[in-house]
């Protein structure tokens, strides 16, 4: 089943008089359950592409259809709702909320959805953290965790609401190769 379809997606950044074409006429399709890697040199537009798919930015031209929904002409609030209900992000620099513990960070997406009891949220968050091997670190703040552990919390945070699509922008770039392997392994499963 087609989950994501991009056609003729072009993104041009305008900075004063300088126009940078970050993406030109990108077409592709992703089916649900697919694991897709996008590779390219620095500055080739990978982050730009993920931002467009992640409803964080809008294309200059072309259309993006996510789960049958045309993203163009959606209001900011509707886009926020799509992100909340259907998307999970993993960033290169983890970006956990520093004032929240591991389990609170993972609970956050569920609490934003407002459709589960406190207890259910807690149980699901705890289970997901256990799945990524952090059962011992539920109540640690991000600054008390290693880079690899933080990224595993970030993955748990993206996985916990079982989104249709997880977008990960260079999730292993800040990790040593061994930890990076483990993280990729986690995302496969």
């Amino acid at each position: 089943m087609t989950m994501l379809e991009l056609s003729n997606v072009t993104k041009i950044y305008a900075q004063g008089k300088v126009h940078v074409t970050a993406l030109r006429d990108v077409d592709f399709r992703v089916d649900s359950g697919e694991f897709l890697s996008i590779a390219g040199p620095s500055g080739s537009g990978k982050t730009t592409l993920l931002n467009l798919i992640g409803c964080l930015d809008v294309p200059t031209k072309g259309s993006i259809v996510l789960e049958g929904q045309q993203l163009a002409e959606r209001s900011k609030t509707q886009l926020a709702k799509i992100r909340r209900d259907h998307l999970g992000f993993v960033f290169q620099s983890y970006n956990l909320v520093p004032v929240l513990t591991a389990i609170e960070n993972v609970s956050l997406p569920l609490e934003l959805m407002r459709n589960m009891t406190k207890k259910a949220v807690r149980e699901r968050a705890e289970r997901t953290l256990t799945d990524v091997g952090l059962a011992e670190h539920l109540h640690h703040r991000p600054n008390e965790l290693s880079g690899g552990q933080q990224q595993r919390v970030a993955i748990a945070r993206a996985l916990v609401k079982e989104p249709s699509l997880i977008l990960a922008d260079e999730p292993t770039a800040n990790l040593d190769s061994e930890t990076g392997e483990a993280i990729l392994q986690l995302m496969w499963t």
Partner: protein
Amino acid sequence: MAGILTKLAFRNLWRQRRRTILTCLALAFGIYMVIILDSFVGGMTEMAGRNIVQLQTGDVQIQAHAYVDDPTDRSLDHVFAYSDFTDDLRQLDQVSAMTPRLSFAAELHNGMDDYHVRAMGVDPLTDPDVFTTQQYLAGQWLEPGQQQVVVGARVAQLLDLTVSDYVILLTRTANNAFQALDLEVVGILDTPHPEVNLAVYVPLDMAQTSLGLDQAITSLHMTVSGSAKSAYEAISSVVEQQNSTALGAYTWEQAAEDFMVMAQSSRAIHSMLLSMLILIAIVGVVNAILLGAMERTREIGVLKAMGMSEREVTQEFVTEAFGIGFVGSAAGVLLALLTNWFLVEYGINPYGDMDLGAGIPLRGHLYGVWNWTIIAGAFMVGILASVLAGIVPAIRAAGKSPIWALRQ
């Protein structure tokens, strides 16, 4: 859930606790000053009012309009015979006590120096029914018909007088002839009303005889019971029935109009000062939210990427503003309650023995008052001002684009 936003807000306030505490302190200081200054002004007004009623005017007085219109008029041109009124006034239930006074200008000599004073002929028997003057008396009170004088403490000090000294009171009669009275100082008055301490009191009948005035007086003072307004109206209608257009009934507020104007304008100055303090506190809140939003640009981006709406981000920051407002206001109110309890119970003596001059009827110990409207109002205004001050910077923070926020 609102729960997560509140949790984030308070954790973030705690993360920046130094800034949070400073902002709260600024707000607390503003609130504290509002309450304490108001208590002072309230205490001063109350005390001055009490001094005026108990030492100068009584609750209601009958007097010539001319004396009220020009308080510097010390002539005997507008005296009146009060026996016309007394029977009618006595029949009023509202009038519980009544005493006549005759005010005239005089010079007091001790043989070496002299001093201009306001002399007051008082009825030694009925004056204590209306005024509390005797509470502040050292020595004896006046006796009817005697060549006696009770002098204000300030006059006694200036002319170096003690009880049983003899003095000469030089004045003019109703016919403008000079009159010198040989009087014995029987008592000295040290009251909290500076103007009284600059006056001298003599027996009314003796003064009337000496000034050639028969039964005339300058003012009739009354203590009323029940509603001050209905008493005032009843007394007014008695005066009107006498067809004496030159006379009128005055409440103590009307009689002391200058003072009321002063009290009101000092209140206005205070409220201006206080709005400025609140303004400083608002600047603190705006500053705290703007800085917080700047430092947390990336975090805001993450939250928005996770699907938090702009409304929810705004709500989180406004909750922080509320937190600052609540804690700051509560701290300010708490400190003010403690200080004011002390002010109300023990008072302070800000002027020492110095007179404020300018006829301000205040001297000695000053006490605070409990003004719960202001205390509750200051608390609410503190919170409301903080929340309102937080809204615009919070909306700005929530509007930050997540892509920009997340650029690595």
